[in-house]
């Protein structure tokens, strides 16, 4: 594997693939915090040059985290189709980029070659793609999944209703769900982040949402985003869950910090398939986000983009209904400003899609980041153009429980109108029946939450 390059008279010598991968990244505070970032702009580009010339085999043959040491690496390795890999192993990363962007390559071809790719190869090609590259390549990929309803079709943009409440008040959660539905949001999932992580409380929220969905015949799915073990207990005690949720990390150690392992996820998978309330076959909801491994000190010196790709490698195993990167939630020590958040959002979406995952994005920021609502609106347009499966919607973008800002129900409605996108088909028909939408546009009664009282 070549690790040295001379550019404009200056020689750059890299020690390892790990170093090349890290330094090839766009500037991110998380890589700086880990101390693995490029020292200057030219070194960054030098690393990118080297990376572009490496072959896919170079990447597979020089594991950043060997399978013997890490179960996430093992899951990724086990997922590779050797025949397809053999057919592309001599491609350089640059060739992979150009293949993905070439006009002859469509969803069919990408669906085929993805089986020969590892998460690290996907991370590598992402590093040498520009923002518009990421948008165009991602827009070619369609990933349809089905839980109670199907989402992900071309020309469709779904939304998660995120009706969180600072103390899990059921009436309060309901009120925000009504608001979401009245703007046509909630087709991806009605998903609540609970404050109280007990089986009793999770069960109460699950059953309240389930009853509401049944009462109004809403073609969607429910989910309470507690720790997976709490959800499992709630389900065993009679909670009605369509989807099982869990946050993922890209290393075994990172997952340990989250209190999960592949074994536990396998067990949970069996439970939800057996005792979940959804039609399926896709019954998982995963969340990820650059930086979580470093925050748990479980990053092994690997850059946060690559670790993020590895999360997707793990997620694939469970054929999820939705995967969501919570792009700006973790804070300025990982993504400092809007530029970094926008970049990360596009990277994550593309990487997830190339993995064959039904990607959505929580376009968001915390108040100590150098970003504001305008930046989120920008990123939302870019992602919608890239064909994102769904976006997170919060009342006026302000999550009064998690204390951060995402997109508003208004924003999702605006994106649909602006880019001529529709809600998920079954949900759109329901909105029409309720009189909230007509010919893809909100009607005059939309935006009135008392429609559901």
């Amino acid at each position: 594997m070549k690790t040295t390059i001379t550019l404009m008279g200056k020689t750059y010598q890299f020690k390892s693939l790990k170093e090349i991968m890290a330094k090839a990244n766009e500037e991110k505070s998380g890589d700086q915090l880990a101390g693995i970032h490029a020292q200057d702009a030219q070194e960054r580009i030098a690393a990118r040059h080297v990376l572009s010339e490496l072959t896919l085999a170079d990447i597979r043959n020089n594991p950043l985290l060997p399978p013997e040491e890490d179960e996430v690496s093992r899951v990724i390795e086990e997922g590779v189709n050797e025949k397809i890999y053999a057919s592309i192993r001599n491609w350089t990363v640059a060739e992979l980029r150009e293949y993905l962007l070439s006009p002859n390559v469509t969803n069919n071809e990408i669906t085929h070659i993805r089986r020969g790719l590892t998460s690290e190869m996907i991370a590598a090609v992402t590093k040498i793609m520009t923002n518009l590259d990421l948008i165009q390549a991602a827009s070619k990929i369609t990933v349809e999944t089905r839980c109670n309803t199907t989402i992900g079709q071309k020309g469709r943009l779904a939304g998660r209703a995120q009706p969180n409440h600072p103390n899990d008040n059921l009436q309060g959660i309901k009120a925000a769900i009504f608001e979401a539905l009245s703007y046509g949001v909630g087709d991806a999932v009605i998903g609540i982040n609970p404050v109280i992580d007990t089986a009793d409380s999770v069960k109460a929220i699950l059953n309240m949402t389930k009853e509401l969905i049944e009462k109004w015949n809403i073609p969607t799915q429910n989910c309470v985003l507690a720790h997976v073990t709490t959800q499992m207990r709630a389900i065993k005690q009679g909670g009605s869950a369509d989807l099982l949720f869990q946050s993922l990390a890209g290393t075994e150690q990172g997952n340990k910090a989250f209190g999960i392992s592949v074994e536990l996820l396998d067990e949970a998978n069996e439970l939800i398939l057996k005792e979940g309330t959804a039609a399926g076959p896709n019954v998982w909801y995963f969340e990820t986000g650059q930086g979580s491994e470093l925050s748990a000190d479980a990053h092994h010196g690997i850059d946060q983009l690559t670790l993020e790709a590895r999360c997707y490698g793990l997620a694939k195993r469970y054929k999820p209904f939705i995967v969501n990167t919570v792009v700006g939630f973790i804070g300025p020590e990982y993504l400092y400003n809007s530029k970094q958040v926008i970049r990360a959002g596009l990277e994550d979406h593309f990487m997830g899609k190339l993995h064959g995952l039904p990607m959505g994005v929580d376009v968001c920021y915390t108040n100590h980041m150098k970003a504001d609502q305008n930046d989120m609106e920008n990123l939302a347009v870019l992602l919608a153009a890239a064909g994102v499966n769904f976006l997170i919607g919060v009342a006026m973008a302000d999550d009064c429980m998690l204390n951060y800002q995402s997109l508003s129900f208004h924003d999702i409605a605006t994106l649909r109108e602006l880019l001529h996108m529709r809600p998920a088909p079954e949900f759109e028909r329901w909105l029409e029946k309720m009189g909230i939408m007509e010919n893809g546009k909100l009607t005059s009664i939309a935006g009135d939450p008392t429609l559901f009282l």
Partner: protein
Amino acid sequence: MSRVEGQSIISVGIDIGTSTTKFIVSHLKYAKVSSHFSLPRYEIVERKIVYESPMYLTPLKEKRDEIDLKTLTGWLEEQYKKAGVNVSEVKSGAVIITGETATKKNAESILHYLAEKSGDFVVAIAGASLEALLAGKGSGAFLRSKEVKGTVANIDIGGGTANVVLFRRGKVLGTITYHVGGRLIELDQNGEITFISPSIEPWLHSKNYRLEVKKKICFKEMQQIVQEMCKDMLNSLTGQKLIRLDDSLIHSTSFQVIPPIDEVMISGGIGQLLEKEAPKTIYDTAVYGDIGPLLAHEVVKEIENCSLKLIKATQTSRATVIGAGMQSAEISGATIHVAPSRLPIRNLPIMMIELDNEQIKNRDYVYEQIKHAMIEWKQYFQGEQEIPFAIHIRGISYCSYAVLKEVAKILFSLYEKYFPRNPVLVVICENDIAKALGQLLVLQSNNKVDIISIDQVVVEQGDYIDIGETINQSMVPVVIKTLAFMKN
């Protein structure tokens, strides 16, 4: 992660009605409803019945003006055994004497006797208004009002009274009670009248009905009387007849004007009879020796005539006992200050002090308000100032330390001045500030007086409150007894 996902307390309900007595045992499950990062907060998250007694004919002494205590306690002991519950395990609940029975000579003493004997914190409840409220909670009307848009009335009709409560969107609008009941007139299957309750006599007179015991009555006449009774009640409920305190059919009311009603539920013994076929002869009418079956039928007819929507109650004859056993207790906030040796403490009348966020900053205003309330109290309860009472502070959502300290100083110094012999000071706050206030009062009082300061409880002037022993070392169960009516 929580170590305790929910624990239960055993609660009993005893309803001694005009004709029948009922007993239930329930489990009230309370659970922490706050995260690890906030102040602890608990709520009763589940109320489940674990035992229901059969209907038991309320035992009266021969003259029918006294309850037969011995027979009643004997039956209750048997019921506790059947339910597998020891009196010592009972931590909450209520005894209620309803309808006509409440007028019996020994009603009050029996009520308190049973409350004392039935468990650690079983409270005595009396009054038509509370009875109406508990029945409405037990019948399912309260729950329904949260789901529908209109006003839901629950009419609990027993042997002696019809207790009406109105709910709208989960709020209590008020109560009204009528002298309408199944056992106000008793008769045998030949049509011979065997008993006429004194409480219905004024109404019968006003309508020129001359009934006499031992005289026979025909079906037509009986039906006409019952029909008129129901019509009178429904006219009043629908606002076609104004509410007058001298109306002989009205027992008591909190309304001056009754708001429009959309739906009606009927609970109580009469509610249970709705399913039965309508009586067509005096023989059918008197199957239970009273006018109950006829009343059930006529009241439904009148409700339909007024085009009110009749909704089936989820509980009928047991609505009140279920309300008493399951719905009477609440729990306080979990950051409070109490002197454990003073608990339980029962039947505290409420002294109300209303202060908003602005008023509380004005030291002189606060001083005058509290002083005024205390002087008034002394006048009202002349010679009884040793009776403990509770001071309810309401209207404050935020309060700074400096202001709260000033309030504590004023409160304690005035209390000491006006009630020097009271060994305990009980304060009930609306919002979560009881621990801070309690601690300031402790520092003020220098241990001369025991302090009980609890919060997240809302009471009204005229209410009484019972406060139980601490649960889980952090909160107390409370029962608020609303006695708001104009005429009784």
